[in-house]
């Protein structure tokens, strides 16, 4: 059992948990994730390690289904059944280069730890974070601190620049030579945004989020197609060369359990909190 030491809502449907998990914290690096199982009947779900402080790890997640809603109900002092990790390969860290770190929506959660790691390796780091609207914007302060320069956008113009992260990225690479780009967000955002760096041939990483079970390479649930080959995102990734990823296949496989997920969410709301509307609560 692992104790929750902090639980907070950061934005609309976006929550933060800090958990005491020394075995995960000790060797965790940027780009890696952990797997949580809330209770003995819980599903194992992967979440990016968003920050590490001593024995503590932070995750930030959006409530979309039964497990994330369940996680959002936890408060400081509660226990989580299992936390496994760190899992996956750490981000590749260049030195003395110019890097852009682009986060979309809840994907911004993964960005400060990468930006900080890149900064520590003497890179110039440009941050670009985008959300649908102002109510979904997170971690702006942390990103501002970790990056040499930060751009903030919202799709509806309710905060920062009006537009998409991809638009800003386009301008940035037109203005200065960027050597490496990280793009982290929903699959469709990663697909669209990574097109920006394809023609200029900028090395670009995306962090893939297929459905996982064990996270240790033994089930193949997380298989993705990269450069025409089958790879297991949990051990070969989660970061891959953006320009070789088959995003359409990824998005197709993310939808395998749509019906079951709806059923699970309904079950969750009926059995845990009594609000059968399916609306979020925070």
């Amino acid at each position, binding site marked *: 059992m692992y104790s929750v030491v902090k639980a907070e809502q950061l934005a609309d449907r976006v929550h933060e948990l800090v958990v005491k998990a020394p075995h995960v914290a000790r060797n965790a690096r940027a780009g890696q994730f952990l797997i949580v199982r809330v209770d003995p009947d819980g599903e194992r779900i992967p979440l990016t390690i968003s920050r590490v402080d001593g024995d503590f790890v932070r995750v930030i997640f959006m409530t979309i289904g039964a497990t994330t809603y369940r996680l959002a109900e936890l408060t400081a002092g509660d226990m989580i059944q299992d936390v496994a990790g760190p899992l996956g390969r750490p981000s590749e860290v260049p030195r003395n280069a110019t890097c852009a770190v682009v986060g979309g929506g809840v994907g911004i959660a993964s960005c400060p730890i990468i930006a900080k790691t890149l900064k520590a390796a003497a890179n110039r780091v440009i941050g670009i974070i985008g959300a649908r609207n102002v109510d979904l914007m997170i971690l702006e302060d942390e990103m501002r601190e970790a990056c040499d320069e930060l751009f903030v956008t919202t799709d509806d113009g309710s905060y920062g620049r009006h537009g998409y992260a991809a638009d800003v990225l386009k301008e940035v690479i037109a203005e200065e030579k960027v050597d490496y780009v990280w793009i982290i967000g929903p699959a469709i955002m990663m697909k669209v945004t990574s097109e920006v760096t394809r023609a200029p041939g900028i090395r670009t990483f995306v962090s893939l989020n297929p459905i996982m079970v064990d996270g240790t*390479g033994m089930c193949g649930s997380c298989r993705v197609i990269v450069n025409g080959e089958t790879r297991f995102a949990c051990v070969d990734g989660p970061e891959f060369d953006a320009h070789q990823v088959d995003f359409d296949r990824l998005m197709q496989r993310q939808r395998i359990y749509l019906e079951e997920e709806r059923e*699970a969410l309904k079950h969750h709301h009926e059995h845990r909190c009594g609000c059968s509307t399916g609306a979020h609560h925070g």
Partner: protein
Amino acid sequence: MAERSPGERILDFSEVDSGFTAEEARSEAERCIQCKKPACVSGCPVGVDIPRFVLAIAEERFDEARSTILEANLLPSVCGRVCPQETQCEGACILGKKGRAINIGALERFAADRGEGEELGTLVRAPPTGRRIAVVGSGPAGLTAAAELARSGHSVVLFESLHEPGGVLVYGIPEFRLPKSVVRREIERVLALGVELQTNTLVGRSITIEELLAYDAVFISTGAGLPSFMGIPGEETNGVYSANEYLTRVNLMGAERFPAAGTPIRRGSRVVVTGGGNVAMDAARVARRLGAKVWLVYRRREDDLPARRDEVRHAREEGIEFVTCASPVRIHGEPAVTGVECVRMEMCDLDESGRPSPRVLDGSSFLIDADTVIQAIGTSPNPLLVRLLEGVQVGRRGNLVTDENGRTSLPRVYAGGDIATGAATVILAMGAGKRAAATIDADLRDAPAH
């Protein structure tokens, strides 16, 4: 031994039979002629003193039967249920030459299932040696090695990446063949010897290689969990599973109780399983219990099926349809499976294993209308840790190469079980764990403190 009817048992995940009653066990044990040179023992990879424990059962000294088995085998309730006895102890039993071999597996299960851990007192622990040993992976090989090393007085940490110890015993083999409560009880016996278990810990990530090599010795038993896919078109389609994924969702995660348990599984109504081993039988029978009509497509002939004899019989009784001498070539459907195209195979000359090797019969393709496909065509050694161990000698199939005593090419690093042999059996993994533990113990006693 009363087996539940197929119609009843496909409705739940409880065991197929309830094992011997005391009377049945005694009368079966009495048939043993107590050979002076018992062939059965040489057929058992961990050398259980079979005549002695069988005699104890015949004389109704059941506790003694259990402690006799435990001297050689710390997971007897598991082994009694899942060992391929027909090719091991029972296959060697002298009575089998003319008539019916002693049902050693069922007797072992009977003796082992009785009693609640009071036999621990009979397991002697040597005085502490002050040596620290890391065992990586808590399947049968790791559990056995950890127990033996603890009995020799070493302090042992057992690392497991999943949230529950047991390896394939908990994530692979289904409840109706091996109840989780049985596995848990046996694991508790191992832990009670003083083994420290650390779950949720993936060695190579949670623990670095340097940290691992800081132990006085390391035993690697990470298994052969990497699933193979056939490499045919359509494999990325929704509804195509590896057997490992399908079985893990149910056995480890309880998906049959979804949504009460959080992990979903496709409740396909028409399922094709490819393969012919224990894994394929298990996947097919799980799918059947989830309510599907199931076809098992196997490349060779019925007689060639490598699964345990009983499992093939049980699968057939439960209505699994065997499509032999056939092989899938394409999975149809987008985005989800709608059918599996197969071809007929012709059995030709014998291959190196002495079995006829299958060859595609031209123009023989046919379609099975299915919504789920489970591939159970094999697994290979887990590559993660192997790749991180710089300079270690690796075999052709990605296995760790060891000598017959479990030593790898790196000093103080030992390995055994499926990671060394490729996918094999529970009892072979246990035998390897036991041999390696003895080697480690001997090597450490010879070596100065690390």
